[in-house]
């Protein structure tokens, strides 16, 4: 990571330009240097004008490069500012929004721009620029073979190797078209680099007779933490009906164990039962429900409801056991006990009530692909609610999040005083996730501005139905 701290004066702009210029050269990304330099100037000037106004302060500028993006961030501790992006460019001379030009150019020339509230540590404006790579849909697809007689005896389930990246992209593209929400899989180079860094752990079904990929599953480890999300499942149409999906998934779960993960989570959509059934059959336990958390409205060959956002069951498969001491609000103690009993994880409830500290830790982030905001309370403190409200305001009113998920640690101090405060803000209990933040178990609360028609939600098992009924009742209390 490269870092530069400069005072909030315009005369330091050339220093910023040099920083960008040298970094572009070092990272060999001159192809996109112009766009980065433009966005850097716009972000710097926007913060000077709006956050510091004529006041003095510092702006910390960081550059990181990962497998897919050049990431440029600006952190300041100035005044709260309006960070809503202009919706459209001018269409006549009289419709030019002169004040909004900086953010308009950032929106147009960066791949993604997000504001992250770090509470007392300031506010971060983070800009992502895609590294130049070739998407699979720009490459020709292989010719279709006719009358291929495939057999399960020819299939080996194994860890990903880089020479298969293009084929993995191709079968994802064939199965999902452009609709798969995680676009990384459309880029063979990204599949290779993400697997290299460990952020993606792919497992494939390999047809040894024809030397080609028949299916794919993966563990996603965005933060390389102790819980991975399993997904990105696809089986090439010619290989359907051989039970490959289950075999690849079992191997992927085994790989998760060898990586030392505490568990694997999964978020199957509720427009069909197949994925939920797979989860339950392979030992995963329903731990929550996310109403409207998925933007995906249409699925191939499934008659889905396209009038509303999708909902997901949350499943968790424990891979490791440890003792945990949980602080939970009495109102949800019974349902939480039921979930932990199903998970077969050992736990005790904390007896230290009324314990508290002044300052807690709250962070937030926004996922534009899903239009979902997340707020993470990793340390309980009396000031939690203030930072939750600030983050909530940013996510809903500025980033236009359709849903906000609030994760509250259960392995810290007494959470009880915080719960009425968050329910006052219309968050409702929607489940738990073991080991989710810094290896600690969390409760999930959800804010849903528009209710979901639950008649379209299909749930597979009786225990999942009971959990969804509980969460649905909690939802009704706040909506």
């Amino acid at each position: 990571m490269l870092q530069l701290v400069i005072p909030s004066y315009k005369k330091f702009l050339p220093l910023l330009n040099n920083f960008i210029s040298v970094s572009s050269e070092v990272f060999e990304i001159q192809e996109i240097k112009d766009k980065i330099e433009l966005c850097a100037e716009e972000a710097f000037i926007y913060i000077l004008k709006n956050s510091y106004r004529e006041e003095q302060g510092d702006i910390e500028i960081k550059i990181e490069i990962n497998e897919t993006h050049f990431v440029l961030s600006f952190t300041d501790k100035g005044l709260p500012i309006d960070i809503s992006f202009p919706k459209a460019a001018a269409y006549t001379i009289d419709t030019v929004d002169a004040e909004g030009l900086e953010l308009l150019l950032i929106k147009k020339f960066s791949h993604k721009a997000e504001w992250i509230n770090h509470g007392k540590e300031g506010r971060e404006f983070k800009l992502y620029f895609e590294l130049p790579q070739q998407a699979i849909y720009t490459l020709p697809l292989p010719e279709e073979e006719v009358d291929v007689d495939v057999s399960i005896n020819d299939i080996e389930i194994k860890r990903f190797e880089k020479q298969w990246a293009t084929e993995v992209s191709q079968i994802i593209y064939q199965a999902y078209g452009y609709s798969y929400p995680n676009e990384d899989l459309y880029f063979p180079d990204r599949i290779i680099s993400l697997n290299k860094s460990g952020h993606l752990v792919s497992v494939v079904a390999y047809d040894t007779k024809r030397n080609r990929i028949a299916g794919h599953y993966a563990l996603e480890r965005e933060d390389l933490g102790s819980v991975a999300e399993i997904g990105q499942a696809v089986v090439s149409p010619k290989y359907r009906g051989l039970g490959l999906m289950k075999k690849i998934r079992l191997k992927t779960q085994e790989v998760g164990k060898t990586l030392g993960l505490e568990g694997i989570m999964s978020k199957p959509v509720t427009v069909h039962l197949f994925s939920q059934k797979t989860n339950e059959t392979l030992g995963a336990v329903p731990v929550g429900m996310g109403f409207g958390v998925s933007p995906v409205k249409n699925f191939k060959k499934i008659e889905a409801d396209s009038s509303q956002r999708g909902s997901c069951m949350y499943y968790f498969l424990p891979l490791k056991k440890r003792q945990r001491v949980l602080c939970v609000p009495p109102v949800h103690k019974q349902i939480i006990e039921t979930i932990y009993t199903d998970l077969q994880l050992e736990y005790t409830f904390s007896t230290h009530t009324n314990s508290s500290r002044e300052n807690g830790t709250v962070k937030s982030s926004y996922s534009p692909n899903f239009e979902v905001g997340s707020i993470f309370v990793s340390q309980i403190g009396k000031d939690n609610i203030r930072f939750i409200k600030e983050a909530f305001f940013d996510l809903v009113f500025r980033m236009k999040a359709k849903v906000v998920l609030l994760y509250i640690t259960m392995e810290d101090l007494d959470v009880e005083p915080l719960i009425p405060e968050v329910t006052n803000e219309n968050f409702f209990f929607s489940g738990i996730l073991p080991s989710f933040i810094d290896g600690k178990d969390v409760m999930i609360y959800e804010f849903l501005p528009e209710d979901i028609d639950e008649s379209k939600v299909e749930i597979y098992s009786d225990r999942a139905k009971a959990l969804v009924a509980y969460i649905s009742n909690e939802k009704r209390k706040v909506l």
Partner: protein
Amino acid sequence: MIEIQKEKDILIILSDRLDSMNADETKEIVMEALKDLQSDIILDVTNLTYISSAGLQVVLKCAKIAQESQKECFLKGAHGTVREIFQVSGFLTFLKEA
């Protein structure tokens, strides 16, 4: 850098960079040159390698002065990222390309 030639039309030649560091000074020069405007304006950006929103404000000022004087403001020689910036900001909807 800015150079102004007053002939049949007013030719404003912008070159190198037009950013937050030099936009205010450039704007003053332009406003002085466009006082009592009697002819069309041609903004020649053939040798302009970089423009930011601060630079766009200068261009917007030229276009507005032209509009108020019932004259035209033309853009000449925009290419590469500079042209893309004019395009995505919507400026090509009111600047005619010469």
